[in-house]
């Protein structure tokens, strides 16, 4: 009887191999086409290898707890010629265990062709595809000071949608027909920073925080800390407790912050400056107010000395000053986190004690983060901690 090999299928994009974790059938069993035969584990999920046809399991050559690449032979099913014809299958003859890349065609004079071990890798082997930039295109882009981000809006007419030099020249020609003004140096610098930051997978979480305790605290305190500074201090304390969320991923290593220096965004002319409060975890809230206000003023005047910018491990941005309730800021390219504060507003809050809605002052607190370093859970916990700290401003 002819035999069909049981092959490790392509289990998902970027999966190259899978681990055998269980057998659902044994040699001798009669199976149907599509029936689950072998359980495998990939780095994403547990899946099953199903039968290519109806027939009888002749042998299972795969070993438990061994890994096999996509396309490897895991066993053999004896079947009928009708079944083979019906499904249009290839027949294996005397395929040795582990002989993963030679499948001879039976009855064809033993025509031996070496087949690749892994079929249909989604990775392009040659230069094709939407993201390919030819040397000539790169040279032109360099000449014009452009980066791949600038071409985002260009539809490519090349193979698989790549942007060819012709597409590029047409795009430039079109641009030149429109009104153009020179972007400021600040704008270009911010653009570059945002572009670089965006090469990472950025995610956002948010929650409302009650500001009543903070406003009460402010009434009796001098100098008065603003909500954003309060959030900054709370973030510093939370990161001092656990600095991992502010770590940076470089390759396969997490680089931990050495000092809890937190920056805060100040709008200045055509861009954003980020002065830094050093060791914000070691200075109580009341001691931060004056330095904070001074830095804001200096920033607005573009007179920040060099030692107060750079080196921060996270940033706080108060988009609430623009009346925004929520936003999805982008962390600085060298940072993992940016904490955002929305506009304060009156909101109804359910008071379960009173059994009714009571008015409170509320603002949205957001955390935008590099998803390679932390997941939603860790982000949520950090935000919770910040909110909790902000509800007790006198402890900050």
């Amino acid at each position, binding site marked *: 009887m002819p035999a069909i090999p049981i092959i490790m299928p392509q289990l998902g994009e970027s999966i190259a191999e899978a681990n055998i974790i269980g057998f659902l059938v044994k040699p001798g069993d009669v199976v149907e086409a599509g029936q689950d035969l072998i359980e495998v584990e990939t780095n994403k999920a547990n899946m099953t290898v199903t039968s290519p046809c109806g027939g009888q399991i002749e042998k299972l050559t795969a070993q438990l707890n061994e890994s096999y690449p996509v396309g490897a032979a895991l066993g053999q099913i004896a079947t009928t010629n009708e079944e083979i014809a019906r499904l249009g299958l290839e027949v294996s003859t005397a395929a040795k265990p582990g002989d993963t890349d030679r499948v001879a065609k039976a009855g064809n004079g033993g025509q031996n062709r070496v087949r690749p071990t892994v079929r249909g890798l989604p990775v392009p082997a*040659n*230069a*094709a595809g939407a993201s390919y930039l*030819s*040397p*000539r*295109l*790169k*040279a032109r882009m360099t000449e014009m000071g452009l980066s791949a981000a600038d071409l985002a809006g260009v539809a490519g007419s*090349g*193979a698989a949608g790549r942007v*060819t*030099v*012709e597409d590029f020249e047409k795009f430039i020609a079109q641009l030149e027909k429109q009104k153009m003004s020179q972007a400021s140096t600040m704008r270009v610098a911010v653009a570059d920073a945002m572009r670089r930051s965006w090469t990472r997978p950025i995610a956002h979480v948010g929650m409302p925080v009650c500001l009543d305790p903070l406003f009460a605290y402010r009434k009796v305190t001098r100098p008065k800390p603003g909500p954003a500074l309060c959030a900054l201090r709370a973030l510093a304390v939370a990161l001092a407790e656990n600095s991992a969320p502010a770590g940076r991923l470089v390759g396969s290593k997490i680089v931990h912050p050495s000092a809890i220096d937190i920056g805060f965004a100040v709008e200045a002319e055509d861009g954003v400056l980020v002065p830094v409060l050093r060791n914000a975890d070691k200075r109580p809230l009341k001691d931060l107010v004056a330095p904070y206000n001074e830095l804001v003023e200096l920033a607005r005047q573009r007179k920040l000395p060099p030692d107060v910018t750079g080196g921060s491990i996270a940033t706080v941005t108060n988009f609430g000053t623009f009346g925004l309730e929520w936003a999805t800021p982008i962390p600085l390219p060298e940072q993992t986190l940016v904490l955002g504060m929305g506009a304060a507003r009156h909101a109804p809050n359910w008071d379960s004690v009173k059994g009714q809605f009571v008015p409170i002052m509320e603002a949205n607190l957001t955390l935008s983060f590099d998803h390679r370093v932390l997941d939603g859970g860790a982000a949520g916990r950090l935000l919770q901690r910040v909110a909790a700290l902000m509800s007790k401003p006198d402890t900050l």
Partner: protein
Amino acid sequence: MSLTYLEAIREAQARALRDDPRVFIYGQDVGVFGGAHKATKNLAKEFPGRVLDSPISEDAIMGLAVGAAIEGMRPIVEMQFADFSTVGFNQIVNQAATLFWRTNVPCPVTVRLPFGGTSGSGPFHSQCMETVYAHYPGLIVLTPATVEDAYSMLLEAVAINDPVIFCEHKFLYYHLKAEKLPSEALPVGKARIAREGRDMTIVAYSAMVHEALEAAKELAPEGWEVEVVDLRSVKPIDTDTVMASVARTGRLLCVGEAWPWGGVTAEIIARVVSEGYGLLDAPPQRLNAKDTPVPYHPNLWMAHRPTHHAITAAARNLLRK
């Protein structure tokens, strides 16, 4: 008066014999018989004692030519077929090609090689030899593709003070005709833009230029303007002209009738990639004969070498990249 590529070669030799008493022609059957291809027809009669039959001795033929050159003559050697020049290979590459470098005495020998395939000629009457000769320092290798170039480049070859390997394509002998002989020409060493274009460059030489032009014609109705560069000489290669063409088009296809390993197509691509990487909008491609000896049967022969069909297909592929 129209004349063929072959007649142009004959006319050039006649003119060389007439204008310069130092010129003589030496080879097998070149005398009264006029040569196996009739390239020296009537020349023995018109120039008695200057068109001489040799024995079948390619080594001695070349050695004699070198000696004659040392003595101040300007010999034209006709190898009956390029394929037979291998018997004289040693004298060409080790004697003629090294003389100037070793002794400062120039060696003004012109070796005419009837090369390239014609249907039915088989493995030993069809070879393209330009690659092996171009590889050796000390030789100039010419590959005229037109009747006019066959004439003017042969005249210039005889005048050049170095050994020149003059590759005349046997298929073009009778298939190419021109109205008249040129009065002026591009000098040896300069490539010619045989067809101007915009979308891609095909670099070719000798008979393949015509196949490339045919392919360009086929692609024109589809909106593609293909530029064809006729190298004219493969040693030296006019790299500047090739580079300027690729600068205009960004896409390069090299076509050669010789075998794939090494060769003119590989040389062009190596130069363009290393000196003009930033000019390329797509990977450069090449088309050569199959990596087997040249077959005899027309079915096999036609599939063995690049034809305008193959060129068109390769060009379309490149244009779509």
